[in-house]
């Protein structure tokens, strides 16, 4: 299960996001890290320092690309310029799989730069799946889509979020980047049992898992990625590993970022949930 056709048959272990405040530490100390996740858009530029940094990272580490603005769920067609730049980056990083979100965020060529939840309709599932297939065919790399955290639900929805996820990934025949923190956040915001969601995910399609922290407010939880992972999310992670087997896992920490060592330590807690024989081997 850990290596499957949705993650290029790679078994990557536990990684962390590559973030600017950690660059100096990484280049100076050269820490041992299973892999780094990069935000694709940060490196879809013409040149300069970002590409220099990326090339240095690629010399020493394995990298997986994670996008934030493909917007598979937007009704408008895929942005060809975006795809062309993304493909150039895929060739440069040799990412074994590529991820982006199951959401929308652009209308008529204008961008929200947000991850807006989908209306869970069959029309939306069909259109979204078609765009994922188009992107995969163009990019020639396996694609996995991430479930987002959400703060609103649409009246027009005809199914649950997890039913929608199933519809899309089956139709697109793509992988899933399973974000267990997002499942937790949405379950609290929309009053569902996160295990109902988790247990219905097609485990064989899980290419990668995200874990993260969040912030609780009086009326809702926001997916802020600025705290350690809380125990209920670790419990969901344990269940995900039980269902999908040991899977490439990534800790997201994007705001109020602590030291590299602290972030890495938090990520490595994921190894506690591996089967005993794999824990000893790692």
């Amino acid at each position: 299960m850990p290596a499957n056709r949705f993650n290029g048959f790679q078994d990557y272990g536990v990684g962390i996001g590559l973030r600017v405040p950690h660059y100096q530490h990484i280049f100076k100390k050269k820490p041992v890290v299973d892999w780094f996740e990069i935000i694709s858009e940060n490196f879809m530029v013409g040149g300069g320092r970002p590409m220099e940094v990326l090339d240095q990272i690629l010399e020493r580490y394995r990298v997986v690309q994670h996008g934030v603005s493909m917007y598979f769920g937007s009704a408008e067609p895929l942005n060809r310029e975006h795809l062309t730049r993304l493909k150039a980056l895929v060739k440069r990083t040799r990412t074994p799989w590529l991820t982006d979100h199951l959401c929308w965020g652009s209308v008529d060529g204008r961008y929200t730069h947000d991850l807006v939840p989908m209306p869970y309709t069959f029309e939306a599932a069909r259109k979204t799946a078609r765009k994922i297939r188009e992107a995969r065919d163009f990019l020639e790399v396996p694609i996995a889509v991430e479930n987002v955290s959400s703060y609103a639900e649409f009246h027009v929805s005809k199914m649950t979020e997890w039913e929608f996820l199933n519809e899309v990934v089956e139709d697109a025949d793509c992988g899933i980047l399973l974000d267990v923190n997002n499942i937790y956040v949405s379950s609290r915001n929309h009053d569902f049992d996160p295990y109902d969601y988790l247990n219905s995910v097609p485990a064989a399609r899980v290419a990668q898992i995200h874990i993260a922290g969040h912030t609780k407010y009086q009326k809702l939880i926001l997916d802020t990625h600025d705290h350690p992972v809380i125990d209920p999310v670790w419990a969901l992670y344990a269940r995900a590993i039980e269902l999908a087997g040991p899977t490439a896992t990534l800790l997201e920490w994007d705001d109020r970022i602590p030291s590299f060592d602290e972030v890495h330590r938090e990520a490595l807690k994921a190894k506690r949930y591996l089967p005993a024989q794999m824990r000893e081997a790692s």
Partner: protein
Amino acid sequence: MNLEQLQRAVFEVTRQPLTPSETMRTRLPDGRSVRDIANALIKPNDRMTSFERLQIYNQQYWFRILASFTEDFPGLLSLMGERKFEKLAIAFLNDCPSESFTLRNLGARLGSWLGDHPEHVAGVERVAIDMANLEWADIDAFDGPELPRFTPDNSGNLSGDTVFRLQPHLHLLNLAYPVDDLLFRIRGIDSRGETVSNAVLNFPRPSKIRRSSLPRPRKVHLAVYRLKDTVYFKRLTHDGFALLQALGQGKPLAKAIEVSMLRSRRSVDRVTELLREWFQNWATLGWFAQP
């Protein structure tokens, strides 16, 4: 309601500027009730109304793009002060929403927009436009593309008909104010010397520049470019700037020289010497791409 209609309806609401107390407006510009739209689109729950749930996306939209815009234009912020800058930013981003998959390009149209909307920078129009253009050039030079370089070694086939290509990351700015000095002051960088690196990891939060300490108008011809992953500002002479501009417009070498030297009273020998010096210097700085 199909997918396209729903997304248009949500985006129309979420991109409306927030109220001064950072809540969602209750009416669209055409008078429609946002509460009615939210109720029609969004399910409420036992803690939040449809309006409140939609408001989260409205707030996230503005908080995100304003934070990015503010980070990109610390010089303009310092020039205008926080209150006027925020008003300007909201008006600009409302008129010119992002049309790029990356927030990097958010301010690309700011300079020309300010030219069309000087009321937002009243009293400091030209210095503000100069600053906006400089800060955008700085962003673009930082990670803009670089083509294979022309070096003095590949100069064997040059003739008067040669058309040079300037590097895409090279920006030529015709400034009415020395805003390069002002920007360095704001960033706390010593700008003595004609070429100054702009590589700073953390900028102090800029405070408002007093009107009395604004620079006096002075024409500055500035090149903003990248060399070895660092952005530099370099002041040019009028003639050198005009020559580069002509080359950048695609004029052949002989024509560009003719255009740029029109007002020169220098001797032919001096002009030849200057040209050799300039081209050697500019090629070393990597400003030319291979023709």
